[in-house]
C-alpha cells in the first residue's frame, strides 16, 4: 500500500467524521417534534384524501384529532364508525358514533317523467349548462344530466343511468360530499342511510309554483302540503313550494308517499307494498 492511498483514506474518513458530527448538531438544532400518534392515526385512516371529513386530506384530520385531544365533531365518512373506534382505542379517547350517510339524488326528472323539449349540444359540464339554460326538460332546478357529480366521485359510487339520464348512487358511496359540492343545482344531498338501507325522501328540488313545475315534470313536487298534514312526526316542512323530509325525525312510515299526488316522494329499499288490509294486519303483528 503506498502513501497516497493511505493519506486519501485518512482524509476521507476524517472528513466523514467531521461531517457526521456537524450534521448531528444541525439536526439537533432544527429538530421538529411531531407527535408520533399522528402517524399512528394516519395508518388507521383509509388514505383516500377525499376531504369528506372537512379537512384537507387524511393527515390533516389526524393532526386535528391529535391536537384537539378528542374526537368530537370528527368523522371519517369512508372509514365509518369502525375506523373511528379503532382510532379511539389507540389514542384512548371516547369514540363518537355518527350515523352512516349516503348521497341521495333528489331529482326524478327522467326522460319519461320530464320529456326533452330541446337538445343541448354544447360542453358537457353541468356548471356551464346551468349558466346557459334551464335544462333539456325545462325544469330550472332539475338534473342537467351532464355528469359533474360522476366526474367528481373518487370512489366510483355514482353512475349515469342510460334509461333515465339521471345519476344513480351505488351502495359503496362513502358520503364524502364531493358530488354535493359538484352539483351546481344542489340536487344531491347527504342523508342518513336509514334502517336496512331504507330511505324516504322528496325526490325534487323545484321551487316553482305548482302549475309550471308540473308542466315540465310529471313527478315534480307542487308544494300542495298534503304530505305535511299526513306526517304524524312533524318531519316534513314546506318551504318555497317544496316539501322536505327531515331524516332525523322521519320514522319511515311511508304515509306521505301514499298521499303525494305527483309521486314526488320516493322510497328506496322497502319491501313491496301489500294490499291495504294486509298492511294493517302486518302492523298489528309487528
Amino acid at each position, binding site marked *: 500500500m503506498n502513501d497516497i492511498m493511505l493519506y486519501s483514506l485518512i482524509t476521507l474518513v476524517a472528513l466523514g467524521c467531521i461531517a457526521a458530527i456537524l450534521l448531528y448538531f444541525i439536526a439537533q438544532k432544527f429538530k421538529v417534534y411531531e407527535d408520533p400518534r399522528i402517524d399512528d392515526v394516519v395508518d388507521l385512516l383509509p388514505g383516500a384524501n377525499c376531504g369528506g371529513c372537512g379537512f384537507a386530506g387524511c393527515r390533516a384530520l389526524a393532526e386535528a384529532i391529535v391536537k384537539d385531544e378528542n374526537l368530537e365533531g370528527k368523522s371519517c365518512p369512508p372509514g365509518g364508525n369502525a375506523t373511528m373506534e379503532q382510532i379511539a382505542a389507540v389514542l384512548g379517547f371516547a369514540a363518537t358514533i355518527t350515523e352512516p350517510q349516503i348521497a341521495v339524488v333528489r331529482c326524478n326528472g327522467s326522460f319519461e317523467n320530464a320529456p326533452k*323539449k*330541446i337538445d343541448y*349540444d*354544447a*360542453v358537457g*359540464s353541468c*356548471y*356551464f349548462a346551468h*349558466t*346557459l*339554460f*334551464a*335544462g333539456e326538460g*325545462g325544469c*330550472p332546478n332539475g338534473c342537467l344530466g351532464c355528469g359533474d357529480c360522476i366526474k367528481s366521485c373518487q370512489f366510483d359510487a355514482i353512475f349515469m343511468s342510460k334509461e333515465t339520464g339521471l345519476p344513480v348512487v351505488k351502495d359503496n358511496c362513502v358520503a364524502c360530499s364531493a358530488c354535493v359540492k359538484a352539483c351546481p343545482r344542489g340536487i344531491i344531498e347527504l342523508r342518513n342511510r336509514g334502517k336496512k338501507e331504507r330511505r324516504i325522501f322528496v325526490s325534487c328540488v323545484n321551487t*316553482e309554483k305548482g302549475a*309550471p313545475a308540473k308542466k315540465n315534470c310529471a313527478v315534480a313536487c307542487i308544494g300542495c302540503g298534503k304530505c305535511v298534514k299526513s306526517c304524524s312526526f312533524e318531519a316534513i316542512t314546506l318551504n318555497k313550494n317544496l316539501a322536505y323530509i327531515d331524516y332525523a325525525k322521519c320514522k319511515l312510515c311511508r304515509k306521505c308517499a301514499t298521499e303525494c299526488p305527483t309521486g314526488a316522494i320516493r322510497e328506496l329499499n322497502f319491501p313491496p307494498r301489500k294490499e291495504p288490509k294486509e298492511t294493517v294486519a302486518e302492523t298489528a303483528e309487528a
Partner: protein
Amino acid sequence: MALRTFKIGGVHPPECKIAEHAAIEELGIPKRAIFPLGQSLGAPSVPIVKKGDMVKVGQLIAKGEAFISSNIHSSVSGKVFAVDDYLDASGYRKPSIIIDVEGDEWEEGIDRSPNLKRDFSLSKEEILNKIKEAGIVGMGGAAFPTHVKLTVPAGKKAECLIINAVECEPYLTADHRLMLEKGEEMLVGVSIIMRALEVSRAIIGIENNKKDAIQHLSESAKKFQGIKIMALKVKYPQGAEKQLVKAAINREIPSGKLPLEVGAVVTNAGTSLAVYEAVQKNKPLIDRIVTLTGKSVAKPSNFLVRNGSPVFMLIEAAGGLPEDTGKIISGGPMMGKAVTSTDIPVTKGTSGILLMTQKESKRVPVQNCIRCAKCTTACPMGLEPYYLAILSTNENYESLEKEGVMDCIECGSCHFTCPSGRPLLDTIRVGKNQVGKIIRNRNVR
C-alpha cells in the same frame, strides 16, 4: 386609400345578409305582451303597476331605481294580467309584467307623425334626462342603459362620438335597413347625442358591405355638422366596442377600461334613432327593428316590433317555422344565444331572430387540438384561446386571470376558426365566469 379596420385577429364568416333588401314592415299588435323586468344590464327595474291596472301605450310600468338600471314603458294598451315570473330566453323564469292587450290607446304627448323634426334646443341636462325617462338602452345587444353611458364622469373628457353601424354579425340587417329608411332621423339623433356629450366630432362606422347605406348617409350627413361616415373593411368582430374604436380613430383601449379612457363614446345606430324619437317625438323606447331571417325562412324580413311581442309572432309573419329548423337564435349566429321556446318576448336588446337550419346548427365532432394556432391568430383581443381553454378545464383560475381571460369579448372567432371543432369559447366562458366571481369576491373583501 385602403379601408380601415382593426389590426389584430378577426375572421370572415359568410355574410348571409339575406334580409337586406326587405323593407321594414310594421308588425301588428300582440294579444299579450310580456315585459321582463331585467331587460337591461344592471339592476332589474321595479314595477309600478299591479294586477288589473289599465295601461296605455307609452305608459311607464317599471322604474329603474338603481344607478345602472332603466325605465320600462308599455308598448301596448290594455290590462295588466299579472306581475309574475315568465320564461326568458334561457328557460328560467324571471319576474315580468304581463299585459293583456285591449285596443291601441296611446299616452298623450307622443308625436306619432312621420315628419322629420330636425331642430332641437334642449340643453345637455335636459337631453340626458329625456333619455333616462324614455328608458333607452344600448340596442346592439348588451342593453347597457344609455343615460349612464352618456354621463361623462368628472375628470374624463369625451372627444369623439363613434356610432356603431357596423353590423358585423352575419345575417342581421336591422341596422342596415334602419340607416336606409330612417337615416336622417338617426343623424338628428346623433347630433343630439353629440350635444349631450359636448363633442364636435362624430364618426359613423359602417362596414363596406352596406354600400347603399354608406352612400345614402353620406348624402344626408352633408346637412349635419361634424358627422363623418366612415366605410370600414369587412371583418368580424368589428362591431365590438374596442375593435371599432381601434378601427375608427386608431386608439387602443387599455385592458379592463371603457372607451372613455381614450376619449371615445360608442353607441349603436338603433340607439341613436331611439334618442331621436325620445327627444324630438317624446316617444319612449317601446319598439325596435328586429331582423327575422334564416336560410330556409319563406320571407326573411325586418320588422318594426313592439317590445314584449312574443317571438312566434315574428316567425308567423315571416311565413312560419321552416321544417328543418335546428336552432332558434336570439341575436346573430356568432354571439347570439339559442332560445328554448318561441313564447319568449322581444326585449330592448333583441336585434334579430335567426332560424338556423339543422345542417347549419349541427356542431362538428370535437377532435384533438393540432396546435395550428389558428385561434390565436383569429383572437381580436390578442389572447391565446387554446391555452385559456386548457387552463379553464384544469380549473387553474389564477393563471387564467393572468392570461387575461377577463379581456375576452366572447366573440367566438376562436371557435369559428378551429379546424378541430373544439368548443373553445364555451370552455373559456366557464373559466371567465369563475374568474369573474373570484374577482368580485376579492373586491368585496
